[in-house]
C-alpha cells in the first residue's frame, strides 16, 4: 500500500479532451471516490493509473516511483471493471487464482490455494468455487471480480463502477460489503461512479470530475455542505438542489453579488399560507412510501423538496416558502461563502 498521485495529467482521444490537467493525490489507506457524469473522464483516469492508456502529458507517481511509462503488469495495481470482468473459460476458483498464477509472481500451489480460499470467504463466494464463471448471477460475478482484485495486495485498487450493472438491492448490499472489506484490509482505493449515494456512503474523500477536470475534492460532508460551484451542488442531494434566481423569494439575506440561490430540502421551510399572503402553490405530491416529494410552483419556477410521509399538503394548497441559510452562487456559478 502506498500513496498514489497524478500530476497535471492530460489525455485526449482525437478531438476529445478526456482528462485535462488532472492533479490528484490519494493517501495510503484512503478510499477516494471520483464522481461525475458519463464522459467526465472518470474511467480514463483509472485507465491512466493502471497503465492501459498513456498520458499525453503529466506524470503518475506510485509510492514515490514515476510509473508513467511502465507497462500495466509492472505497476502493481488491481482493477475491477464495470462488466466483462470474469474470464468465461475458467471456474470461479481459477478466476480468483489467475492473478496469482502470473509468471511474474512465483507462488507455490499451496500459497495460491490458501489465498483463494481466504478471498472467497471474504467476498462470500466460497460455496461456488468450482462453478463456471458464466453460470453465476450478476451479483456473484461482481463479487468474484472484486475478489480477483483483492487476492493480491496491490498498491491501489481501481474500481470502475463495479456495481452499476446490478439491481438496486444488490447494489446496496455490495456497497456495504465493499466498505467493510476496505476498512478490514485498510486498502487504498480509487472508486469511480456516477451514483451519488455510493460516493456519499463509501468515500473518505469525494472528487467531483467534470469535462476531464477535477472541480472539487473533499470529504462527503464538505462536498455536500460547501460545494465549490453550481455544478458540484447539482451533483449531490436527492431530490436535486433547487436553483433559483436571487430575487425570487423575499427576506433573503443574500450577500452582495448573489445571482443564484441553491436550496435543498433542509434550506426550505414550507407552510400552508395562513392569510391571503402566499408565495406559491402545491403542484403535486409524489408518494414514495417512506417519504414524499413535494412539487411547488413559485412564480414561474418549480421547486422540489422532501416532506413527511403523512404530509397534510394537497394539490392546489397555497403555501409560504422561506429560506434557511441556503447556498449562494455568483454570476460565474461560484459559491459565495456566507
Amino acid at each position, binding site marked *: 500500500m502506498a500513496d498514489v498521485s497524478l500530476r497535471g495529467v492530460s489525455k485526449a482521444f482525437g478531438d476529445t479532451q478526456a482528462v485535462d490537467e488532472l492533479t490528484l493525490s490519494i493517501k495510503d489507506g484512503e478510499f477516494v471516490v471520483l464522481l461525475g457524469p458519463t464522459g467526465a473522464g472518470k474511467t480514463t483516469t483509472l485507465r491512466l493509473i*493502471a*497503465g*492501459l492508456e498513456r498520458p499525453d502529458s503529466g506524470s503518475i507517481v506510485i509510492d514515490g516511483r514515476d510509473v508513467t511509462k511502465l*507497462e*500495466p*503488469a509492472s*505497476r502493481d*495495481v*488491481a*482493477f475491477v*471493471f464495470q*462488466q*466483462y*470482468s470474469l*474470464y*468465461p*473459460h475458467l471456474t470461479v476458483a481459477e478466476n480468483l487464482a*489467475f*492473478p496469482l498464477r*502470473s*509468471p*511474474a*509472481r512465483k507462488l507455490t500451489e499451496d500459497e495460491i490455494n490458501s489465498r483463494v480460499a481466504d478471498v472467497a470467504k471474504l467476498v462470500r463466494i466460497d460455496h461456488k468455487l468450482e462453478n463456471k464463471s458464466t453460470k453465476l448471477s450478476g451479483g456473484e460475478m461482481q463479487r468474484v471480480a472484486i475478489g*480477483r482484485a483483492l487476492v*493480491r495486495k496491490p498498491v491501489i485498487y481501481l474500481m470502475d463502477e463495479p456495481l452499476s450493472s446490478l439491481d438496486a438491492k444488490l447494489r446496496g448490499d455490495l456497497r456495504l460489503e465493499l466498505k467493510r472489506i476496505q476498512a478490514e484490509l485498510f486498502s487504498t482505493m480509487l472508486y469511480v461512479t456516477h451514483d451519488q449515494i455510493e460516493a456519499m456512503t463509501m468515500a473518505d474523500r469525494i472528487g467531483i470530475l467534470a469535462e476531464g477536470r477535477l472541480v472539487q475534492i473533499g470529504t462527503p460532508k464538505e462536498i455536500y455542505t460547501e460545494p465549490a460551484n453550481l455544478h458540484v451542488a447539482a451533483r449531490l442531494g436527492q431530490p436535486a438542489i433547487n436553483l433559483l434566481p436571487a430575487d425570487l423569494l423575499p427576506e433573503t439575506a443574500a450577500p452582495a453579488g448573489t445571482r443564484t440561490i441553491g436550496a435543498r430540502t433542509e434550506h426550505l421551510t414550507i407552510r400552508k399560507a395562513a392569510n391571503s399572503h402566499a408565495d406559491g402553490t402545491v403542484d403535486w405530491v409524489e408518494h414514495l412510501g417512506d417519504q414524499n416529494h413535494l412539487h411547488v410552483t413559485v412564480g414561474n419556477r418549480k421547486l422540489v423538496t422532501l416532506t413527511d410521509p403523512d404530509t397534510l399538503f394537497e394539490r392546489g394548497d397555497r403555501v409560504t416558502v422561506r429560506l434557511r441559510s441556503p447556498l449562494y452562487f455568483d454570476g460565474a456559478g461560484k459559491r459565495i461563502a456566507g
Partner: protein
Amino acid sequence: MSAAAHSVVEPSTTSKRVAATLVVIYALISMIPLFWIFATSFKTPPDSIAYPPKVVFTPSIEGYCNLFTTRTRQTPEYINALPPATSFCDETTRKRNMVIAGPSNFLPRFVNSLVIAFGSTFCAVFLGTLAAYGFSRFRVPLADDLLFFILSTRFMPPIAVAIPIYLMYRELGLSDTALGMVLLYTAVNVSLAVWLLKGFIDEIPREYEEAAMIDGYTRLQAFRKVVLPQATTGIAATAIFCLIFAWNEYAFASLLTSGTAQTAPPFIPTIIGEGGQDWPAVAAGTTVFLVPILVFTILLRKQLLRGITFGAVRK
C-alpha cells in the same frame, strides 16, 4: 403443444415437418454422387461399366486392391507356376491374368496430401490468428487498406496467377516440393483466415486482456491465456475452411507437382490409364480421399456451424 400453436416466433408443427421433409429430400439428392462413388468403389470393373447401371451387385474389394497396387500382365503358364495366392487381392489379380508387381503410388500421394493440407492449414491459421489479433486490437496504420489488400488476393481465381507462380517456383527450386505447396496454400488461405478470425476476435471484449495485463501478464501471455481459449470456436471454423480448400485444390497441384510432392487430387485421375478403364479403383481412391476431411468435419461440426452462421445473430 397448444402454446406453440399460438406462438408468433415458434413455427407450427406442420411447417416444421414440411421443412424437415424438404431438407431430407435435398440431402438425399445431393448425396447421390457420393453414394454412387462409394458403391462403384465396391464393384468389379465389369459391373462398374454395366448398362443399365447395377444398383444391386456383389460387393468386391478389387477396386481397393487395384488402388494400392501396381500389376503386370503375365501368361497363364507363369501364373499357374506360382505358389498359391496368399490374399484376396492376389487371387483376383491372377484371375485377370495379372500379378501384383508392387505397391502403387497412391499411399505416398495420400500422405503428401495430408502433410501439405494440414501443414498449410496450420500455417494459415497461425499467421491469420496473429494478424487478426493485431488488426483487431492495435491502431494499425492504413488498417482498412491493408485488410482490403489482403482480401483482394482472393478476387481472381487462383489459376490466373498460375504462370507467374510456376516460373517463380521453378526459379526458386520450389517446384514439386511439399514446402512449396505448403507456402502456396498458406498464401491463398491466410487472407480468408485473417478476415474470418478478425470477426471472431473483435467479438472478444478487450477488457479480458486488459484485466490479465493488470494482473501481471504480458500482452503475449494474456493473448495465450485469455484470448486464444475464447477464440477456439473461430479458429476451428477457420481451420476447416482452410483445410477443405487445401485438401481439394487441383489446379495448382496438377501444375506444380508431378512426382515426389504430388497430392492425391492430381494423382487419382491417373489411375484410370493403367490397364483399361479401372473405375472401381478411381472410386476407391476418391472414397479413401474423402475420409480425412469427413472425420475432421464431423469432429468440428459444431464450430463449423457456428462459423457459417457467424454474424447472423448478435448476442
